[in-house]
């Protein structure tokens, strides 16, 4: 008998494709949340592999805070054009205009938390019964206990004490009317797996991930990009530095790191050597010890 062995990336890939196909089989109106970050890019890549040569049978849903890096939007539009997928964009600004969400004020104002309102409204309006997200269990400790198939009640809330046991590869997506599911196809991937897979599959990503010169300023020990969305204090010095981003989120709370990593090989070496988690660069997680847990319970991504 010949020895057969899949490497860890191919095994993770196979598992994720299995999960995405289960979603399409078990739900009537699924959508895939897409932010333009690397996790949602590989998730969409896996979806294309799952259904090829057929088209991806669900739309991408982008919850747009309005505080984006232009490079992310350009990349998103290029990808949609190139692969012919349907894209739906819902704007946090609309939720604010309708009085559904209130803008934060002050120097640390962010629309990151407001996305939850827009997301839940979009799920209701579009009658989405399953929203796939690129969350990974290695990102944060509240995520370590998340299921692949995560049940949400009629208010879109996550009850960590009342999640269904997940055994073998049997996923239970049964639900009552008004409830929905969040499904996380890349639950078992780590940051390193994602980067290795991008290299292995030669997947295009926004150039924000690679080292470039940019105007930045230092706040609370973190580098932020100078953007029109952040109010700067007089004491903050804006200077040009060679930086890149480890995660791409809302521009008001995504930190940059000084880096000379110009290609994927450089990034992988940098990730292997780094001693800080990637969410360590996200101001949204620093708000309290249970920041992510609180946002998840409310219905965050």
């Amino acid at each position, binding site marked *: 008998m010949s020895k057969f062995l899949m490497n860890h990336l191919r095994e993770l890939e196979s598992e994720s494709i299995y999960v995405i196909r289960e979603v399409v089989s078990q739900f009537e109106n699924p959508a895939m949340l897409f932010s333009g970050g690397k996790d949602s890019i590989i998730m969409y890549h896996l979806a294309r592999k799952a259904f090829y040569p057929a088209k991806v049978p669900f739309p991408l849903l982008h919850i747009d805070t309005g505080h984006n890096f232009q490079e992310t939007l350009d990349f998103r539009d290029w990808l949609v054009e190139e692969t012919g997928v349907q894209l739906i964009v819902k704007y946090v600004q609309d939720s604010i205009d309708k009085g559904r969400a209130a803008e934060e004020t002050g120097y640390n104002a962010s629309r990151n938390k407001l996305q939850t309102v827009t997301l839940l409204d979009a799920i209701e309006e579009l009658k989405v019964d399953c929203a796939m997200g690129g969350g990974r269990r290695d990102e944060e400790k509240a995520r370590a206990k998340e299921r692949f198939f995560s049940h949400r009640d009629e208010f879109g809330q996550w009850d960590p004490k009342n999640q269904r*046991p997940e055994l073998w*590869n049997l996923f239970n997506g049964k639900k009552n009317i008004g409830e929905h599911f969040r499904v996380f196809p890349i639950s078992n991937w780590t940051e390193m797996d994602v980067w290795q897979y991008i290299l292995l599959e030669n997947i295009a990503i926004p150039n924000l991930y690679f080292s470039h010169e940019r105007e930045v300023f230092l706040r609370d020990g973190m580098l932020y990009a100078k953007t029109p969305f952040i109010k700067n204090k007089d004491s903050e010095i804006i200077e040009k530095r060679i930086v890149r981003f480890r995660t791409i989120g809302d521009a008001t709370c995504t930190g940059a790191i000084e880096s000379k990593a110009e290609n994927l090989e450089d990034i992988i070496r940098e990730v292997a050597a780094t001693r800080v988690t990637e969410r360590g660069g996200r101001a949204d997680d620093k708000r309290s010890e249970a920041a992510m847990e609180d946002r998840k319970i409310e219905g965050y991504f």
Partner: protein
Amino acid sequence: MEHEITNSAYLDMELLRFTTAGSVDDGKSTLIGRLLYDSKAIFQDQMEAIERASIKKGEEHVNLALLTDGLRAEREQGITIDVAYRYFHTPKRKFIIADTPGHIQYTRNMVTGASTANAALILVDARHGVIEQTVRHAYIASLLRIPHVIVCVNKMDLVDFKQEVFDGIQHRFLEFSNHLDLHDVRFIPISALLGDNVVDRSKNMDWYQGPTLMYLLENLYISNDYNQLDARFPVQQVIRPMLSEFHDYRGYAGRMASGTFKVGDKVKVMPSGFTSTIKGIDFWTEPMDSLTAPQSGTILLEDDLDVSRGCMIIPAENGIKQGQDIELMVCWLSDKPMIPGGKYALKHTTNELRCMIKEVKYKVDINTLDKNYESKNIGLNDIGCIEIRTTKPLFYDSYRQNRITGSLIIIDEATNVTVGAGMII
């Protein structure tokens, strides 16, 4: 364990999933913390966060156990609610730990974590030896057919690293596990707190010549863990592109549950029993010669057959069991006890059907492993042998032979909650 990821080395890395079982205070969290810490899977900001938390709690040392403390509800109540997943890697393997809490009432969590594991780590406190919970953990590993079991005799530092203690525990474990269905059991004397035999070889136990825990995890032979004998391909869905360039394309998408299919293989589609030949195997843009578990792919057949989700493709000459009266071992996962005669929904591979609980044959006392034919109430965390009748025939293998085609879940039709985990006998 300093290592650099080179651009091709990672292509040879394998994936190993293991579960950890131990009772309260036997050092399980410390062991996991040590594996993560020594393999550099713990980052500086995570370490600083637990340092802060340890100081806040007034603890003397950095409490590595806090790393595996997930939700605020758990921190407040000082308990672990659920299975948590942890990740680390070495140059040889990527590891996924299903970390399950050890309390008596959490059999359901251990069963959940065990269902996908290649290996189980069972912790035994050297001072206490084999206790009821050890028996239970070994039984669950056997019931769920985890291919490899590693018994870590922990806290050896507290028994002066004495070989007699280790030998005694090994002897006692083998004595009762002889009655179980375990095939590969290893024993390692360790001290998770001090690091002896976890990643580095112990300087205090010259009498132990075996591998360290990390060496074992990196070198367990796992490629036989997927049943290499009977090919099984449950169809997840039919791919019909409806595009002019793929006009007549009709492929069956799924993931190999076990075995291998090659192009040209004669196959049979269950439940119809019609036979055909594999015309092609597609994955993304490249056609493949073969598909081996656990790969996902799309199979194309020579003949136009009626194939849909829930069908299974098997070798033409190979049989699979079929029937509506199924005997199985069940672990109950819900507060609401099982209702004899009750009707439930059921999921088996990609099939969904209904069933009725016909009979409870016996309940297992998981501390003594005795079969109880008198008490037949199956409640939360109970394990029993039952017979069900399904609304249509199930095609299956016994769980002993195949963990995918031999497993099923039972679902409460009123609440849609998964209430039972079944292993077909």
